[in-house]
């Protein structure tokens, strides 16, 4: 009786109804009891999946560890929900909105590990009372907590990283005065991310007298012949690799090998300094340096304990447990530590031991982050993080990096201590930029 037309359109109708019904299904089963809810905007597919699965896996493993080992923070269980952002600004904003509320619970910390997403939600976090953390990326001037009360660039921003890298290069050259006349090439992805450190690099080039060669690479960066030809022609002494994605980074290393540019004179930003970035380049990557936020390795007591407690019980988040101790996973664990310390601090400051925190209390808790050497030892991460503290005006904290070197199989820390950036200069630049932003957006900076 029904011919092709109606059965076809009916099929479409049924599909549409099924899809609409999906929205009515609750996304997180409501659990009773005292809980602190976190929304995790992870990216597990796409070109940066390796970093995303590692980082967010580390966060989830640490939250799980805190729940299992200590029963939560003063009895408050850590709960979380994930949302796939695919490293895309629009999806990230949608995930932010979706993760914001889960029944009665609201998320109060948002860490997207993606600059476009951080920018996308920057305007909303003040009203929604969500702490936006940019762990080593994003807006460098968010370090000024007076203009950005809800945004943190703990524990180092791109500007600090650039300054620290140059400080380390200058020590390798024998001092700042030896930098005069040297040629430093900034090989970067032609995007906001790649251009972010330029103000710092240009300023230092002027102050120290070295020549900065800015070499942009068009996305996706797997074709760098012309750029490396230029590096060879200009006879650059050092190359700062500000690359993005395993393709671009391993291409940079291979291209350097092809023109016999010593890998020991290349320093990568943290996006260009993970196992996944150098493994495709094989032997060519031996000797390559990177400026890491957190070193890799399983020698830290906390890492070993998480492996024993969480993975021992089969509740680990990484599908491949061999990745425990990799750079991104270690970094995720430290991010989880920041969150839990914020909860601990918040409960203490607001006198709400054993209770859920609201947005303002979480912010105060995060701002009160104070990782003393004693606390680092207590947590079992001595050497994994520098000792630093945040304050009302300083939302960055450390501004240091650890220089690591790839030996073909793993990353080794080259600097036993942390390499610092020029704190005074960076702070000056941060305050100037933040003031400009405040003027443009008509924000009155708060008093600290």
């Amino acid at each position, binding site marked *: *009786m029904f011919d092709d*037309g*109606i059965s*076809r*359109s009916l*099929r*479409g*109708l049924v*599909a549409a109804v099924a*899809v*609409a019904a*999906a*929205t009515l*299904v*609750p*996304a*997180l*089963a409501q659990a009773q009891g005292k809980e602190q809810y976190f929304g995790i905007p*992870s*990216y*597990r*597919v796409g070109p940066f*999946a390796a970093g995303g*699965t590692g980082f967010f896996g580390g966060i989830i493993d640490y939250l799980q560890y805190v729940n299992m080992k200590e029963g939560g923070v003063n009895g408050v269980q850590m709960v979380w*929900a*994930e*949302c*796939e952002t*695919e490293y895309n*600004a*629009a*999806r990230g*904003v*949608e995930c*932010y*909105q*979706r993760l*914001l*509320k889960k029944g009665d619970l609201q998320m109060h910390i948002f860490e997207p590990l993606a600059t*476009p997403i951080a*920018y*996308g939600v*920057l*305007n*909303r976090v003040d009203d929604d009372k969500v702490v936006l953390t940019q762990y080593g990326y994003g*807006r*460098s001037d968010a370090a000024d907590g007076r203009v950005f009360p809800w945004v943190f660039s703990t524990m180092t921003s791109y500007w600090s990283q650039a300054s620290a890298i140059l400080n380390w290069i200058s020590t390798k050259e024998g001092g700042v005065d030896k930098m005069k006349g040297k040629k430093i090439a900034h090989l970067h992805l*032609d*995007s*906001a991310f790649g*251009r*972010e450190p*330029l*103000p710092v690099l240009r300023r230092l080039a002027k102050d120290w007298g070295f020549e900065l060669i800015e070499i942009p690479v068009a*996305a996706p960066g797997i074709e760098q012949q012309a750029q490396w030809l230029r590096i060879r022609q200009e006879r650059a002494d050092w190359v700062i690799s500000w690359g993005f994605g395993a393709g671009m980074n391993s291409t940079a290393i291979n291209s350097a090998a092809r023109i016999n540019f010593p890998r020991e004179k290349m320093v990568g930003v943290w996006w260009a300094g993970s196992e996944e970035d150098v493994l495709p380049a094989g032997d060519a990557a031996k000797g390559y340096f990177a400026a890491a936020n957190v070193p890799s390795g399983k020698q830290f007591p906390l890492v070993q304990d998480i492996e024993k407690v969480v993975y021992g019980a089969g509740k680990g988040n990484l*599908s491949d447990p061999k990745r425990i101790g990799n750079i991104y996973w270690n970094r995720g664990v430290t991010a989880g530590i920041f969150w839990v310390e914020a909860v601990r601090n918040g409960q203490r400051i607001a006198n709400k031991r054993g209770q859920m925190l609201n947005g303002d209390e979480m912010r105060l808790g995060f701002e009160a982050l104070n990782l003393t050497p004693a606390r680092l030892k207590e947590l079992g991460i001595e050497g994994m993080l520098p000792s630093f503290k945040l304050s009302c005006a300083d939302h960055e904290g450390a501004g240091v990096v650890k220089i690591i070197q790839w030996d073909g199989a793993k990353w080794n820390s080259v600097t036993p201590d942390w390499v610092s950036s020029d704190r005074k200069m960076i702070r000056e630049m941060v305050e100037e*930029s933040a003031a400009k*932003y405040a003027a*443009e*957006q008509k924000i009155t900076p708060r008093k600290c």
Partner: protein
Amino acid sequence: MFYREAGQFRTSYGQDGQIFPLRQDRWAMLALLAAAVLVVPMVASDYWLRALLIPWLIFSLVALGQNILTGYAGQLSLGSAGFMAVGAFACYNFMLRVDGMPFLVALVLSGLCAAAVGMAFGLPSLRIRGLYLAVATLAAQFFIVWALDKFGWFKNNDPSGVITAQPIVILGMGFNTPQEKYLLVLGIVVVLALLAKNMARGATGRAWMAVRDMDVAAEVMGLPLMRTKLQAFAISSFYCGVGGALFAFAYLGTVEPSAFTIDMSFRILFMIIIGGVGTILGSFLGAGFILLLPIFLSVLFHAVAGKTVDASITSAVELIVFGALIIVFLIVEPHGLARLWQLTKERLRLWPFPH
């Protein structure tokens, strides 16, 4: 049963030429608009407004522009995201550099800027067709994004390269809450969609369709080819530009040039292909499909699989299912979702009778 057309007579040319000749259609459209304006802002949660409805409306607008160019005028274009970028940055710069510029005026001006750029990149269409034209418009996409990235003036020399859109103020009223932004975007989209529908139904649209079907014959018939094609590019880019400005101001709040990727251009093209090439409704349906379906799938999988399945697998499965659904829909109805709706309506007009 739903469409009782007995007694509905059209006694004037005006009545015959309505967009909705059937009374039931008119009532349904009015009800839909009333619901959209009155009910949705009160009932919908912030999440629905901010993350689903506003982007859907904005991308419908851009898909409309793409449909005008590719669907009606037959000029295959892959530059829509580039024109969105022009609109977004033009609006930002107008609001920034002209004191007291009203937002709606800035919106129209940014649309006109995008139209000018669109016309410039549409010039190759006078000589080349089809896939080759697509490549030429691809150049538009990359060139525009490169130019916006390279010349810091467009971004007010912001060191990070990301501009923050100014708050929207019209006639002293701020449009900052999700409800207000939604109503503003809805108003703009309804007006522009009505304009597009009327253009498509009128002489302009017929000229476009003649050019699409066989441009040599159209030229022989006396249609000015250059004017028609450039007009299609201009109007399409106007829509994309306004969409881009709304994308920056009413949706994300911040934009950088590299947010308008070739990937976005492709998605807009897919929106009209799945929605229905050469239809107005198709733009809305296609935008809903490409934009909202992945989100529904994500919510569904998280609800069903939740913590039991590794989140990486869930994310990967979402992509697989989405791709499979695209294939299924295109096999079931190659002419798109709009055609499915058209068939449904034709059946509804007869239902419950078979013929």
